[in-house]
């Protein structure tokens, strides 16, 4: 397949390009962009990466279907499922009534009966109406049935803060779902993450929660040639070192990875430190080994997340580090950088103070670097 793509990009055979545009418009656009932008690489938005993942998996397996509010005719509330109804028809792309508890339960039931649903929540806030079905019906059943019943379902949707959408629409659910045995939970940051993790989630026979982020949907990232392949998957439970460093480790997931990288580059430019940035990619299972290995190298650790501090992702990382051999390698206490412990305010000046950004991360890192145990 990739040799044909190369041919289409370089030699410009019109019929091949047309065929590609018909079969996979997102990929065709990406290749066109490659020629237009002459950056030497293909770029894709997170939204298009998710769309690709859905399109590729649904093409490969007829048992996979997409269900959710406005996913079909409206082309997706955030346009993630654009074009899918046109391509696959109403049997496989289903617009539901506004009844999360009901359609989630229905999707779970269909998974028990052998289908592979992708159940979309318009935001993960609305999935609270369905959380019983996710936890009690989907997550626990394989165990309770002694392994007799499986639930190969994927739950997906935007998670965490957007902009100005206030308390009921800004909650991060990574910690809640991350605590449930029986579920796998992933939290992509960039386009490769989005595509690879969603494909992996759909292929995984366990129920998987995919926590996307609305503010990342429109952001473009380079896609490697491997990532453009229709068999590209990212292993669930493996974190990625986005930037190597020696002085401090920053662990983040989702949008926070971007802020962590910005802080790392800033601090390096200022000559303050070389920070290693780890993109968790998966919340459950948590890739603690990658974190331990990094802490042994840098001796300092901060975590960054958008969710609330109490009982959160950072709290879990701290606890696991304390309980591991990495504890002996720490030169300073681990610090968690999190969303503030309040319902999200609407007013802009207050909302800015409610979520971590590059400044907060830089500030905390500088403070942590100045600490030394026993000094």
């Amino acid at each position, binding site marked *: 397949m990739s040799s044909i793509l190369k041919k289409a990009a370089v030699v410009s055979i019109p019929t091949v390009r047309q065929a590609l545009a018909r079969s996979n418009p997102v990929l065709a656009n990406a290749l066109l962009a490659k020629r237009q932008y002459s950056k030497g690489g293909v770029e894709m938005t997170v939204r298009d990466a998710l769309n690709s993942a859905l399109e590729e998996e649904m093409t490969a397996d007829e048992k996979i279907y997409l269900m959710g509010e*406005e996913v079909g*005719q409206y082309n997706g509330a955030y346009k993630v499922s654009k074009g899918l109804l046109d391509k696959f028809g109403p049997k496989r792309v289903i617009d539901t*009534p506004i*009844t999360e508890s009901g359609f989630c339960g229905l999707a779970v039931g269909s998974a028990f009966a052998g289908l592979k649903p992708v159940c979309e929540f318009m935001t993960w806030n609305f999935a609270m109406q369905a959380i019983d079905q996710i936890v009690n019906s989907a997550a626990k059943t394989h165990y309770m049935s002694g392994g007799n019943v499986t639930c190969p379902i994927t739950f997906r949707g935007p998670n965490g803060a957007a902009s100005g959408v*206030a*308390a009921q629409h800004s909650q991060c659910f990574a910690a809640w779902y991350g605590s449930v045995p029986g579920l796998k939970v992933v939290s992509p940051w960039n386009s490769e993450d989005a595509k690879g993790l969603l494909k992996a989630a759909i292929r995984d026979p366990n129920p998987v929660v995919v926590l996307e982020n609305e503010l990342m949907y429109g952001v473009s990232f380079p896609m490697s040639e491997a990532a453009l392949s229709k068999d590209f998957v990212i292993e669930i439970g493996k974190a990625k070192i986005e930037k190597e460093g020696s002085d401090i480790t920053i662990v983040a997931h989702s949008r926070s990875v971007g802020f962590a990288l910005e802080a790392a580059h800033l601090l390096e430019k200022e000559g303050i430190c070389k920070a290693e940035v780890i993109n968790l990619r998966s919340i459950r299972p948590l890739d603690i080994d990658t974190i331990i290995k990094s802490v042994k190298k840098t001796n300092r650790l901060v975590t960054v997340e958008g969710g609330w501090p109490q009982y959160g992702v950072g709290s879990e990382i701290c606890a696991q580090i304390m309980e591991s051999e990495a504890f002996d390698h720490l030169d300073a206490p681990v610090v968690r950088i999190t969303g*503030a412990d309040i*319902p999200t305010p609407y*007013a802009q000046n207050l909302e800015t103070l409610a979520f971590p950004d590059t400044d907060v991360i830089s500030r*905390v890192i500088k403070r942590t670097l100045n600490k030394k145990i026993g000094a």
Partner: protein
Amino acid sequence: MLPISRVRSLSTVTTRATTTLQQTATRSFASSAVVPQFHIKLNPDSFHTYNCETPSLEVEVSKKDLIDMYSSMATIRRMEMTADGLYKAKLIRGFCHLSTGQEAVSVGMESAMTSNDKLITAYRSHGFTYMRGGSLVSIFGELLGRKNGISKGKGGSMYMFTPRLQGGNGIVGAQVPVGAGLAFAQKYLGRKETTFVIYGDGAANQGQVFESFNMAKLWELPAVFVCENNRYGMGTSAERSSASVDYFKRGDYIPGLRVDGMDVLAVHQATKYAKEWTDAGRGPLVLEVETYRYGGHSMSDPGTTYRTREEIQKVRAKSDPITGLKHSLLEYKALTEEEIKDLDKTARATVDKEAEEAKAEPEPDMSEFSTSVYVKGHEVPFLRGREPSEVYRF
């Protein structure tokens, strides 16, 4: 040509109407015995019933009531269009769901409610906030995220509350059991009051709506479940979401009434009937109000991908609530064309003035960041910010 004395009394009434609009106190529609009564005939198609009587097609209403209704609808229309502009200017952020076209619902209902009745709705709530006592400046302030906003700028478009309005709610359907709870409290406290629980055609399929129906009927709660059916739940038409679009019958063992929600007098009559129903101890009632929104679901939805522009224009031309009332006012000679124009002008001027006032207000003080997470005096010892050195102590 009106005699001079009538013109003079009209300007007095107009001033009163303007003052009423600016007050945050009770918006009273009680009419005095001296003020002329009009007997307006409703369209024979105004009501459809399900196991209940048909309300009278003759509405008895005072001139003051008619003026208040017209002014209120004109004000809400102008308020929503102003919000539209402020959103496009990026002064309003996040979500903004406008009720342009649906003015007859909030105004018609309020005209038959008392100030002790309660109302709860979902997120298309600016009109209701205004009718239930919210001042224009505090509504705009909230939309703009300013310290004088009705929720101190901390809630935004979907979270506006008054003593008579339990929001403003962002999670579709969740307001319905909460509304049943307001009615439960009214009955528990022995008050002769009604709770109007509003939800849309999209929310009408939510399981918790039916759970609320069951409890309300079982316990004979004074709840009127109002389905504000504007035909579309975001981008999904009622026919595509609901196995039955007879929302007034969905209460099954609860009787129901369907009313033309583009006619403010019909809504008034239906609400009056519903209030009499619950006051008489007959338990809950379902009231389906058929209405239409000209705008999209929210400011991020153009509103034209799932319905035609022709459909929108047709409804605007044939059923606009403000134009509809204007025709009645002229037909029954309640007001002249000139007097109606004056009401329009006053409404526009008032809205514009209060919007400017709100724009001049500052953002909330930073101290508001951590207040009201808990009730004052009963807080936790401290709340953490984004990192350990950001601490908010109580």
